[in-house]
């Protein structure tokens, strides 16, 4: 049967990148479309009417949204190079860490990125506390998935390049090698892994984009109170 696999993403979205990674890692043939979120395509709006967001995977005409849901779908549909382990307890741990990444790490880093002054100091403190859990989890492991890349690595993978971008824009180091030796090593190893390393969006373009995204928050903070 002719398989049709299409991925709707954007050039910069870390969530879209996750879906891109897993398809590449599994050797799935697919097309992708980089959406312009200021002018969403009818296909996107029709495929993800609830959130109207990327990524969306469309497999033989059937759409799947939400990046973590997409990751599990791809893992279950194309069984080569499995992302999740066999054992239910290890699977639960993998899901827990993927969720932790999205629910806690992302939010804490984003806050450190957009806040100003005293609020930023506090946000950075919180982000560091959150990152310490990741450092702890990496003890004795090469990747969050163990010996090879697994679900939590793809879920947290955005750290490997976006942290550098954020740090450059705000002028503050969030993941220092001395404080986070394991996390730093993981970021490097992940960033240079086959498939992953060929897929990073251009660094300068990301810096420009995120600097622009931060502007309204800087302006708002500068308003006299």
């Amino acid at each position, binding site marked *: 049967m002719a398989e049709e696999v299409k991925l709707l993403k954007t050039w910069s979205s870390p969530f879209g990148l996750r879906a891109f990674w897993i398809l590449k890692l599994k050797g799935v043939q697919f097309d992708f479309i980089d959406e312009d979120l200021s002018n969403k395509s009818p296909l996107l709006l029709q495929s993800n009417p609830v959130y109207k967001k990327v990524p969306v995977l469309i497999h033989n005409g059937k759409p799947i949204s*939400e990046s*973590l849901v997409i990751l599990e779908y791809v893992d279950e549909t194309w069984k080569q190079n499995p992302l999740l382990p066999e054992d239910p*307890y290890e699977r639960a741990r993998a899901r827990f860490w993927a969720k932790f990444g999205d629910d806690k790490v992302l939010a804490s880093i984003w806050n450190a990125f957009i806040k100003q002054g005293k609020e930023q100091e506090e946000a950075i403190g919180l982000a560091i506390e959150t990152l310490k859990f990741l450092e702890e989890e990496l003890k004795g492991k090469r990747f969050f998935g163990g010996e090879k890349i697994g679900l939590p690595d793809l879920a947290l993978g955005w750290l490997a390049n976006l942290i550098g971008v954020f740090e450059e824009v705000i002028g503050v180091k969030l993941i220092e090698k001395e404080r986070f030796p394991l996390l730093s090593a993981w970021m490097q190893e992940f960033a240079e892994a086959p498939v992953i390393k060929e897929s990073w969006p251009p660094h300068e373009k990301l810096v420009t984009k995120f600097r622009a995204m931060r502007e309204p928050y800087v302006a708002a903070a500068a308003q006299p109170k």
Partner: protein
Amino acid sequence: MAQVQLFGLWGSPFSCRVEIALKLKGVEYEYIEEDLSNKSPLLLQYNPIHKKVPVLVHKRKPIAESLVILEYIDETWNERNPILPHDPYERATARFWAKFIDEKCIFALWKACWSEEKEREEAAREACEHLQTLEDVLKDKRFFGGDMIGLVDIVANFMGFWLGIIEEATGVKLLTEEKYPKLYKWSEEFVNCSAIKENLPPRDKLLAYMRARYGVSITY
């Protein structure tokens, strides 16, 4: 020590989800009621990151986060009453809606019930939008899972039971039969389901708790 332990909270819908799943699968377990103002050392040891309930402990190994626990239960006790369907696309669909309920619906509904007068209209508008979405998802099925309850039904337990009680306590009306006939009917089927009804907290106790909470919130 029991092979399966659940650290939970009597009035928590998240804790209740896990009890429903264990009941569905016929799993024997020891239940430990936590006092969140005085968390037990065991809870803090088993869930050091979030320090929350529910936590399932199986053969001394802890699992936290209700959605993660539900999938674990389904995969571990897989001989009967599947919580997730077999087909990958249907599984993805179920996971999508479970996530939607957890990340959007519950918060919107909660906010709509407890909001100050001036914010209530906006909060209610959003909540109603989500209820309509669920109404459309349900279509003519008896449950979100089809003929039997599944992941989405379990995760929607807040709408099935808690919402009605909060509506009664606060006087806010959201899930009405006129506006959402299918979802309303679902909520009645839901609470009458055998795996569900024995695991719901006592209605009077929950209503009293919500009333007391509302009494405090309108005083200020």
